[in-house]
């Protein structure tokens, strides 16, 4: 068996998208973008500590995928997890409070950015261990199969993470057992300071799907429609019990690897150029306005709503109390 990974574009006419979906796309992408910009500011202001990795520029990927998921579906995220968490429907207040290390955070301030998680919406955790999520998502998918639901699990991973052995073990197990898990590669061209092609032996991560007998699909990860449509097909396939797949979303890491990264390995111009050409949010706006699928007014209403929600989240986070020292000793065992 030898199947080229398929490159897919968005083909559904905009008219076939219902308004709710379009609104979800826009609201989610704007929410992520603004959330991240806020986080960046408060990191530099010294109010948000720890390691923080921003999702700016990659919003279309989380959004397009998550538009296909239910609350009861699971995702495993990465160190760059804010976008996934927001798109999966987590409450911004508890998220922001977590990043500030407050007792009201979704992890009670014990996790922080690298360990953001919100099980109430099926978001099973960011991970400080690159490639830590593959096998756990596979297990969550196994559970759904055993429980006879048609739920799925999505393992997000970066181009760099694709070289972890966990990828291989999870992909093989999922394929051998036909588990409903999607391996969702966010190929943002960089793994920390390393251009991915220098340490990854193939041009497309999706090439690896063939080694497991599963479909491999490549899309423009900055086109929310393309991501949505490709993810839809693979997720529905998984729901039908037809097994796992790899979806590779080509995108770009606009910001430094972490907030504070001196970025000595690339030029500002390179990044600026990519941003201008690929920023998923203006692309979305232009497309829906041109097709008259949404109005300027509608977009603005969404932006205003997002700003309000974010302001509330920020206020909540900043005014929430830090955890009591006693919390250190609590919660190790059930």
């Amino acid at each position: 068996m030898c199947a080229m990974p398929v490159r897919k574009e968005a083909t559904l006419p905009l008219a076939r998208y219902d308004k709710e979906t379009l609104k979800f796309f826009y609201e989610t992408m704007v929410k992520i973008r603004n959330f991240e910009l806020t986080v960046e500011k408060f990191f530099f202001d010294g109010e948000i500590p720890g390691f923080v990795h921003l999702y700016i520029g990659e919003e279309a990927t989380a959004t397009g995928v998550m538009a296909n998921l239910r609350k009861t579906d699971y995702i495993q995220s990465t160190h760059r997890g804010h976008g996934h968490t927001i798109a999966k429907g987590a409450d911004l207040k508890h998220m922001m409070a977590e990043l500030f290390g407050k007792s009201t955070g979704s992890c009670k301030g014990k996790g922080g950015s690298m360990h953001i998680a919100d099980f109430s919406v099926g978001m099973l955790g960011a991970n400080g261990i690159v490639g830590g999520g593959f096998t756990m998502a596979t297990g969550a998918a196994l559970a759904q199969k055993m429980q006879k639901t048609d739920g799925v699990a999505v393992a997000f991973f970066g181009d760099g993470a694709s070289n972890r052995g966990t990828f291989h073990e999870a992909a093989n197990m999922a394929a051998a057992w036909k588990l409903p898990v999607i391996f969702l590669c966010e190929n943002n061209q960089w793994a920390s300071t390393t251009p991915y092609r220098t340490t990854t032996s193939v041009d497309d991560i999706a090439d690896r799907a063939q080694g497991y007998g599963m479909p491999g699909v490549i899309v423009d990860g900055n086109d929310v429609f393309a991501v949505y449509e490709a993810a839809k097909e693979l997720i529905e396939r998984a729901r039908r019990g037809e097994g796992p797949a790899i979806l590779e979303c080509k995108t770009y890491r606009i910001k430094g690897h972490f907030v504070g990264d001196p970025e000595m390995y690339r030029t500002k111009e390179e990044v600026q150029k990519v941003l201008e050409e690929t920023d998923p949010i203006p692309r979305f706006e232009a497309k829906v306005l041109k097709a008259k699928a949404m109005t300027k007014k509608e977009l603005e209403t969404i932006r205003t709503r997002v700003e309000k929600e974010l302001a509330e989240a920020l206020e909540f986070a900043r005014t929430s109390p830090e955890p009591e020292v006693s919390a250190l000793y609590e919660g190790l065992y059930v």
Partner: protein
Amino acid sequence: MKTITFSQATLEAMQEEMARDERVFVMGEDIARQGGIFGQFKGLPAQFGTGRIMDTPISETAIVGACIGAALAGMRPVADMHFADFAGVCFDEIYNQMAKIYYMFGGQKPVSMVLRAPDGLVNQAAAQHSQSLEAFFCHIPGLKVVIPSNPADAKGLLKAAIRDDNPVIYFEHKALFSMKGEVPEEEYVTPIGKAKVVREGKDVTLVSYSMTMNLAVKAADMLEKEGISVELIDLRTISPIDKETILNSVAKTSRLAIAHEAVKQGGVGAEISAIVAEEAIDCLDAPIVRVGAPFTPVPFARPLEQAYRITPDKIAAAVRGMM
């Protein structure tokens, strides 16, 4: 009471818990078709189906990782490590995920799973199939670690481990699987976190666990004949440690020895010793003595493996030296 093997005792525990709770399932290498290398899964596939007793690829990181994920999604997995020696392959999953998820995510959901790890020396299996690695796991906050020495505890602790909402590492010594012992007819669980005073004594407290516990009993028999009265404690759980039972005993006997099969340096014996040196040194009338393996990999050749082994003689000699 009935007399069954350690292997059968674990099998009964699995049968009872799988019948009681349909969320319980097992995955591991070569457990379904073969029934486990020590017969410890024999008959389970027929009873519960290969949907709940699953032969996996040779992918220990995926086995443990998938069990964690399944636990988070509401199942209660049991992972079989085949040989405890292979735990290094999935060690990141064990200490960075399994052990931390509950605390690090602020208590959103525990990782309710059991990792079964057959360990210890048997039949000259050499450096990579003979290890006793339990000390690693006792240094990892968030795990519970149990390690029975006989069929009754094997059953009771396995049942307790499966019912526990926290991740539990279950060490089962390979040389114990064929050991016979009395096991209650009626349903029971052995509480995690409680050591057992196996024999009361007044001159010295001898702490052990797993296979070595049985050697400690023999050593105590020898010492008894020489007029040394040994209080024997079977730890059964090595994390969290039942300090109280140990401290109470030492308060009585004023002497402490610890014996285990693992290498002495950095072993569980060090922690037990340090607890007593910290909390009860005034009680002590003698040095705290540890009996553990020399600081080398397990050698293959018979005379070397023999010399490497802990024996009743070595334990008895160590205790004698304290009197």
